[in-house]
């Protein structure tokens, strides 16, 4: 429950746990007692080994999965929380029979809310994503990086306050990936949405985030939350500074110790 001091809090997770039934009749614990408070406008990266429940965490927040126990609270106005969320997936997941513009308009179309304003918003997004010439193209005419940019634009279409990103750049090559990260920061800088960004890449996590949440392997617990006190705007050159290296090393050590403990 948000208290009066929680007015800046965007998402609060209270002892979230998630148990999956397995085919053999047992259960797998994907999440174990995860508690986290995310400030409005904060950029949070979540790192951890495969299968540590990072994606499960996002899916629960999004409402695609239901937690076994614990609570997700959206503050300060928790009533219309679904509209405050936008999700970007690992794959672009564009509909191949819709043009880029119509893919952006997926959400308004589902809510029968397509009007002049949404078209204008779509045009703005196309410019912002550097895709203004590709509005009438079909997804299969776009490169992987461009497709993922459309995926991000689609999540931004209804102007959510919170952006959930599940390894959005995981399927891209390293060069495109770095560029996309910086582009994302530029977009984020415009209106400072709250971002939860799941990734495998520690440098990517550090480069983008205000705080990095480090998770342990199954069952997924919070190992630690690492502050990234690097100045903004961030540039790729930040990667080569000693401060950056220190933070990356700290996270790597956290992950290593968790690994050996299991």
């Amino acid at each position, binding site marked *: 429950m948000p208290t009066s001091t929680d007015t800046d809090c965007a998402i609060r997770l209270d002892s979230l746990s998630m148990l999956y039934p397995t085919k053999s009749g047992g259960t797998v614990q994907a999440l174990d007692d995860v508690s986290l408070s995310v400030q409005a406008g904060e950029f949070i990266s979540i790192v951890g080994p495969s299968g540590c429940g990072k994606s499960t965490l996002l899916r629960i927040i999004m409402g695609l999965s239901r937690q076994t126990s614990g609570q997700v609270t959206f503050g300060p106005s928790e009533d219309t929380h679904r509209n405050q969320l936008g999700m970007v997936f690992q794959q672009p997941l564009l509909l191949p*029979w819709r043009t880029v513009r119509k893919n952006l308009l997926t959400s308004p179309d589902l809510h029968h809310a397509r009007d002049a304003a949404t078209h204008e918003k779509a045009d703005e997004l196309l410019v912002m994503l550097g895709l203004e010439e590709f509005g009438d193209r079909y997804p299969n005419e776009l490169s992987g990086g461009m497709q993922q940019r459309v995926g991000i634009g689609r999540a931004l279409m209804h102007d959510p306050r919170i952006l959930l990103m599940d390894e959005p750049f995981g399927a891209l090559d390293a060069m495109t990936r770095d560029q996309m990260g910086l582009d994302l920061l530029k977009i984020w800088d415009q209106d400072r949405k709250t971002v939860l960004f799941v990734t495998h890449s520690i440098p990517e996590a550090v480069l983008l985030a205000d705080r990095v949440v480090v998770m342990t392997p199954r069952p997924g617990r919070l190992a630690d939350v690492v502050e990234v006190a690097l100045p903004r705007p961030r540039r790729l050159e930040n990667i080569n500074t000693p401060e950056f290296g220190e933070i990356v090393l700290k996270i790597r050590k956290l992950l290593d110790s968790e690994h050996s403990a299991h």
Partner: protein
Amino acid sequence: MSTNTKRQAAGREERAVPDGETVPVKAPTNSDTPARRRRRVPEITYSVLVFIGLLVVWQVVVEMFDISNILVPAPSAVAVSLVDGFRDGSLVSHSIVTMKEILIGFGIAVGSALVSAVLITQFRTVERVLFPLLILTQTIPKVAMAPLLIVWFGIGISSKVLTVALIAFFPLLINAVLGFRSAAHEQVEMLRSFGASRMQVMRHLQIPSALPHIFAGLEVAVILSVTGAVVAEFVGSSEGLGYLIQASNFTLDVARTFAVIVVLSAVGIVLHAVVVQLGKWLVFWTATPSNAASEV
């Protein structure tokens, strides 16, 4: 930081500009160079030439060895019979009967297969009860049912329509079920994350994803429909192209039999072409998968 990342960073500087400006290549069919098009035309010309060549050889062999018209008529005799058939209207009127049987039967098959596929993919119980039965009945050769259908529904058009519908139904159903299931789970979740209802997921995702598969099924089914109509007419009828084949065979008018076969192939080719064209028009974002579930 590792030297690896440093290298990536350096590489990115070079790549960043071209990547942003790259205009992806359009679908290959639209980017044909004139040189390639020139090379492609002869391929069709060659097949036409080979076909004409075979006809000529056929004609020459029949004339040289004086083969009886009752065994193998010369192509010229077939052509004459074809023209005669169209002049006296017999080929036309019988073609109309058979076309009617094919189109109504095919229509029934398409409608019932699509409805069944939707029910099977949307309701677990329907799938559990019905699908095994449908797969089991698929092993029955449908043409073997034609005599029964004649007994039950008489020698009129309804028994033919039902034979056509029966024979076209299964490849359509299997492909449609595969199609409605072909949407990726992640795509469903993507739509759900935007608050899509089950009906909206169906409309915006599952139906369009099913279309390539449905058209693959339609291509197989439309050819089978022609077979079904002819077989049903063989078993018992008083009109139609299948009836005409039997009647001309009975009077040893083999040239007429060949003429009817020519008409039947033309019907099959035209119907198939209509389906393919419709598929290309509706399923513009992908090539129709060619691994259609076929069966006779």
